[in-house]
């Protein structure tokens, strides 16, 4: 279904890669020759059938522009995006859960209000603005982090983390804001339950009440939000990778859309859809682990 929707949307969208390839001086004959060469003149069902048949064989197709296999083009782009995604998920989860729990613990206090103001600011702030702000402050003025210059993990973990620090921070701040809000409200809801009162009555420490009795039951909405934030990251990375010049899948998608390199667009949308399905599956499995009462 994802494949059908993806292919149809790309097919009906405006833009003609043949016109882009042909250049301004091309004659109609050249333009037609390029269209023929790229297979645009075939009927829609034939094009889609051909694409599906190749997809079933693990062949994502060939780029119109570079004439390279898409799997060959995607492979070197995976590491930057996966690394960025992993770091952002870990960091935003740490920040979000920590600040959410702190706010719940001090509910109604000045600390709680300040943390929630920051959280609201976090998800109200446009990603591109925050990205440019961090570049201006930490790269141009302070010189602490590079503006560009992605370093792969093979160059060393520390250089890699250093080169990724600003994009990771920007995405983490944005993603953690929502996690923090949800953690706080879920914790507050659970803290009102009778069994929390019982735990306190039997003399359990506040730490034990929070971590052992309150956090686990409230983790289900938090896990849901983390799963959803991973979906959001897919679109966020398009922006982040473009601004920070990271050679990942997000930038590849933008470049392909600008050029109307349809096979790459289709392939990347399929990759994103597959990742989202996998994330949802993992979150569903986690539900059962977090709450043993849940059975599938």
């Amino acid at each position, binding site marked *: 279904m994802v494949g059908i929707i993806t292919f149809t949307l790309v097919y009906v969208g*405006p*833009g*003609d890669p043949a*016109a*882009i*390839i*042909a*250049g*301004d*001086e*091309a*004659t*109609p004959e*050249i*333009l037609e020759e*390029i269209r023929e*060469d790229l297979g645009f003149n075939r009927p829609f069902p034939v094009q889609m059938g051909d694409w599906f048949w190749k997809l079933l064989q693990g062949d994502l197709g060939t*780029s119109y*522009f*570079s*004439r390279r296999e898409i799997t060959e*083009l995607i492979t*070197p*782009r995976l590491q930057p995006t996966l690394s960025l995604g992993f770091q952002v998920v870990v*960091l935003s989860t*740490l920040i979000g859960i*920590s600040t959410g*729990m702190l706010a719940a613990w001090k509910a109604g206090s000045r600390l709680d209000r300040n943390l929630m103001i920051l959280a609201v600011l976090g998800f109200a702030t446009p990603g591109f603005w925050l990205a*440019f702000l961090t*570049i*201006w402050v930490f790269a*141009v003025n302070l*010189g*602490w*982090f*590079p*503006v*560009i210059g*992605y370093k792969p993990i093979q160059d060393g973990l*520390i*250089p890699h*983390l*250093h080169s990724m*620090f600003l994009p990771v921070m920007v995405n983490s701040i944005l993603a953690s804001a929502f996690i923090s809000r949800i953690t706080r409200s879920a914790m507050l809801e659970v803290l009102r339950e009778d069994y929390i009162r019982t735990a306190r009555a039997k003399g359990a*420490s*506040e*730490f034990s009440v929070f*971590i052992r009795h309150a956090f686990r039951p409230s983790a289900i909405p938090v896990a849901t939000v983390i799963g959803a934030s991973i979906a959001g990251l897919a679109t966020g990375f398009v922006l982040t990778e*473009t*601004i920070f*010049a990271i*050679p990942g899948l997000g*930038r*590849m998608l*933008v*470049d392909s859309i*600008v*050029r*109307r*390199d349809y096979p790459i667009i289709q392939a990347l949308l399929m990759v994103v859809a597959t990742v989202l399905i996998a994330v949802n599956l993992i979150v569903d499995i986690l539900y059962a682990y977090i709450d043993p009462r849940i059975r599938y």
Partner: protein
Amino acid sequence: MRLPQRLRMISFIVLSLATLLVVACASEKETVTVVQTVVSEKVVEVEKVVVATATTTAEERAAAAVNAKKGGHLRISSVGSVQSFDPLWTTASSTGNVSSLILEALFAYKEDNTIGKMLVDDWTVSSDGLKWTFKIRDGVEFHNGTLLTTDQVIGTLRRQSERAPVFKLVWERFGPASFDEFITKENDLEFSLNLTSQTGLVLDALGPQNFTPQMVLSSWYTLPATESAPGTPIGTGPYRFESWTPGDRWSAIPFANYSPSPEKSDGEAGAHTAYFDRVSYIEIPDQSTRVAALQTDAVDLVQEFSQDLIDRLKADSNVQLIANPPLRLLGHFNYQIPPFNDPEHGRDLRRAVVMAYNNEKALLAAAGTPDRINLCASLMECGSAWESNAGSENMYNAQRVEDAKKIVKDAGYEGYTIRLMDPADRQPAHGAAQVTREVLEDIGFNVDLRVMDWATMVQDRATVDRWEFFHTWSGRSVRIGPIGHLRFGELQYDAWFNKYTDTDGTQRKLFDVFSSETDEAKIKAAMEEFQQYFYDDAIFLQVGEFFSNWAASNDIDGLHGNPGGQKPYDKFFK
């Protein structure tokens, strides 16, 4: 009892936050190392790197070249993403960068806009002017060790025969029907170009143009012109391809066996020198990031950024703004549908748009500030030998709205809807489109402003009935004059979006002068006539000239705009 419990809680949260801090601290510690590395590299660059060509005059450039030191790593920010390394297949600027380093053509432009030798050693012309025999330089090697022969030359010309516009023009209008009769091999170092009638464009046909025939090996020249060559480029240029990280950068290093032209370096022609140990093109798609990368010494040269970033760079003492040749902003009429193709009123309506237009306002909307624009009425480059203002009086920047309004009304097109394409992702065209909308509405048209991205516009303009007007811009075409003008010239006669209707044959007659005549005085007179005809018939809207923004580190000396004879534009910059 409560205090220790609180402390445990606080400890847990603090530990979580501390984890984050450790990451930050680790990175910060590393920052010092990296900064030191960059600084030490910088020292190397300052000591070793002196740049390519020169300051303002050819003499100064030659003197600077003599004193230039070699070494260092030049990092250039590339605007587009490289998809193909085949400049014979695409005119994308990101691919065109390959040309200047790795590939070479038979001829190139000199400083004074004349044609200079590159891979050609010499040539002779038969007494009737119909047979041109060229000898290529002996001993020129490709980067894989293959010697350059006429096989590669003829193969490359054959591949480009359908796409290199000047070559195609000369073949189609002045050559025999068959390519094999047009270009013939004499021996391994000589080939001939055979004509059926004389033309003054032979050297231009083998020189720089869109899809310039640059010499490649058989693995590339045997491919169809419409197919991108796979793999990386192998040429005869001063640098050879080194490595490519898709989406990030590609680099080139000096070619040890490079055989430079014996001619003195002059513009893009003559002897080339690989001054740098490495040249890298780094892809930075966002313009603000490009500028920040220059300011933080992550790159040495950046191209194309918006006017609002200029002040930031002017305030940076480590950065220089580069004099760059101007671009020419244009507006296209659709000559194939009403109202601009109306046999009775089309010409008048086009003239109405031109006479009502506020060129200054459009240029400012396109380029930002007065120091970035040049009100230029000439359809060829202002400052060039082709410049002419014939016919532009009371037409260019005349803002005769009332006169134009009457023309539109009398023609019966008042309230007619003009579909104006507005590529919002291209500021020059987008800015001008906003002014055009005002002008068209002021003179009585109804405007359907169609906001889209550039790629959509490229598609739509190829479809006859989807538009009436759009803006675009072009570079220079100084060398061969009006026939080389991308937007209306001979080269565009059959192009897929132009289709200007030369109703009385004037354009054809004048083009014949430009392509056949060798007397400069007659060509100049024809230019004046053509300029007059251009405004009389309002072939398109000449908006004016604007300057694209480039900047470089101060450690690089001697940068100047593209060679080819442009006047120095330093007066426009700090």
